[in-house]
């Protein structure tokens, strides 16, 4: 049974290798567009995550805060569910950092008699809580402590990150669906042609009492293999694009293996689904 399907599918490729190649290539091209997009999306994700890691709330402390008060505050904030860790930056450390980062002002700082920079708590949020609402909520809670002078967080760019990601998701979905449809149409046409090319055989199969599954299986297998080949081709093309761009234009990260595997598999499943649809519409019953 299974060996018949395999032999028939291979025979189909043999009979029309050009057609099989053409359809694998068109699937490959459609999935390549998706692949490139996946690559971009993935890299945007990676970048966003590194940016996000910098999302933090900084609480500037009054100069007269006592060691006990500081400890209470640090423990309290550290136990917020949103908070990953809390770092205390003393007045001295603040000054040292400033002198390191702002070399031009080193003279000015050294001349100062009192250290004007406040001590602060740098509060890092857990990855799940880096959305604008959570950041704001944490900031407001910290601001309630009397010895907290001021609370700052990068409100605007937190929001921008989120907008960017939503937009990226939407574009990916739209493009993804559009190209999947194109690929399905192409595979569907291929299978339809395969069905037409083998109409006589199908008629004889039904005439002598072959089961529906038996009649359909070679075509489904053919669609699946074509889809897989298209997926693999797309992966190859995407990797080519990655090699061409990476290093010369910008630094990119290659897709994680799971994405790549799923992409190729998606090609196979696309091929299978397209074959199935085409069979439903074009499988002749013998007349």
């Amino acid at each position, binding site marked *: *049974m299974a060996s*018949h399907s395999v032999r028939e599918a291979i025979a189909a490729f043999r009979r029309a290798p050009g057609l099989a190649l053409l359809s694998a290539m068109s699937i490959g091209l459609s999935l390549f567009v998706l692949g490139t997009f996946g690559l971009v999306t993935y890299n945007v994700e990676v970048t966003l995550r590194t940016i996000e890691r910098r999302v933090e709330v900084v609480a500037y402390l009054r100069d007269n805060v006592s060691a006990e008060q500081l400890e209470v505050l640090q423990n309290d904030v550290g136990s917020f569910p949103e908070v990953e860790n809390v770092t205390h930056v003393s007045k001295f450390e603040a000054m040292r950092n400033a002198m390191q980062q702002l070399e031009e002002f080193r003279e000015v700082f050294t001349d100062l008699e009192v250290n004007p920079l406040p001590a602060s708590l740098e509060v890092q949020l857990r990855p799940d809580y880096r959305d604008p609402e959570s950041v704001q909520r944490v900031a407001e809670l910290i601001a309630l402590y009397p010895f907290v002078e001021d609370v700052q967080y990068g409100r605007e760019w937190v929001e921008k990150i989120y907008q960017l990601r939503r937009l990226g998701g939407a574009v990916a979905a739209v493009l993804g669906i559009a190209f999947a449809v194109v690929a399905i149409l192409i595979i569907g046409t291929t299978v339809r042609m395969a069905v037409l090319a083998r109409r*006589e*055989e199908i*008629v*004889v*199969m*039904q*005439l*002598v*009492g*072959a*089961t*529906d599954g*038996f*009649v359909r299986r070679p075509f489904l297998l053919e669609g699946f293999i074509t889809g897989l080949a298209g997926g693999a081709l797309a992966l190859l093309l995407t990797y080519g694009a990655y090699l061409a761009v990476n290093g010369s234009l910008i630094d990119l990260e290659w897709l994680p293996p799971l994405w790549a595997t799923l992409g190729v598999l998606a090609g196979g499943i696309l091929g299978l689904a397209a074959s199935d649809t085409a069979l439903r519409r074009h499988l002749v*019953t*013998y*007349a």
Partner: protein
Amino acid sequence: MIKLINVYKEYPRSGLALKNVSFHLRKGEFAFLIGPSGAGKTTILRLIHMVESPTDGEVRVSGYSSMRMKRRDIPRLRRRVGMVFQTFRLLRDRTAAENLAFALEVTGGRRSEIKGKVQRLLAHVGLAPRAGAYPDELSGGEQQRIALARALIHDPVVLLADEPTGNLDERASRGIFELTRDINSAGTAVLMATHNLDLVRRYPQYRVIELADGAVVYDSAGEARESGGES
């Protein structure tokens, strides 16, 4: 074994192709189905092969009923009902032997058994020496022999033949007809639609069912009056 009970068949555009057709074909029986072109002979064979289902009435074939037929039961029914056509319907890109092997393969035949069975069938229809010939290299009569062999691969209880000699000359026709007689005498019932009235007259021992305009107008088995045409 095959029973049509008050069968009507209506086609969307051409109207009633069969009107109240009833007859019973018994195990091992041989019957001609005659009548002018368009009378409904092919339609009856297609109903028995369950390519079509009746608009009204019931078709019973070897334990299966058109009223309770599920799509997945059809393959099993088709293996019990062999069918041949005027146009043979062989696969032209396969040899005689490959045509038979194909029919066995696609119905789940075991590879180890296929070769032997194909050879037996070829010998049965007298074409063992032409096993490697393609349909285009065979005469019409020889092609029909292959088609008959293919119809027999599952030892059917009945053979349906739709004008099997329609494309053949006198001599080839006789050969094919003799072969169907052999098949019949081995126990397989035969229902043969034909325009060849000479043939029908030459074998008065066989039953004749005559159709006109979708109705049974004569049945030599004497069932015509109860079941048949109002005309």
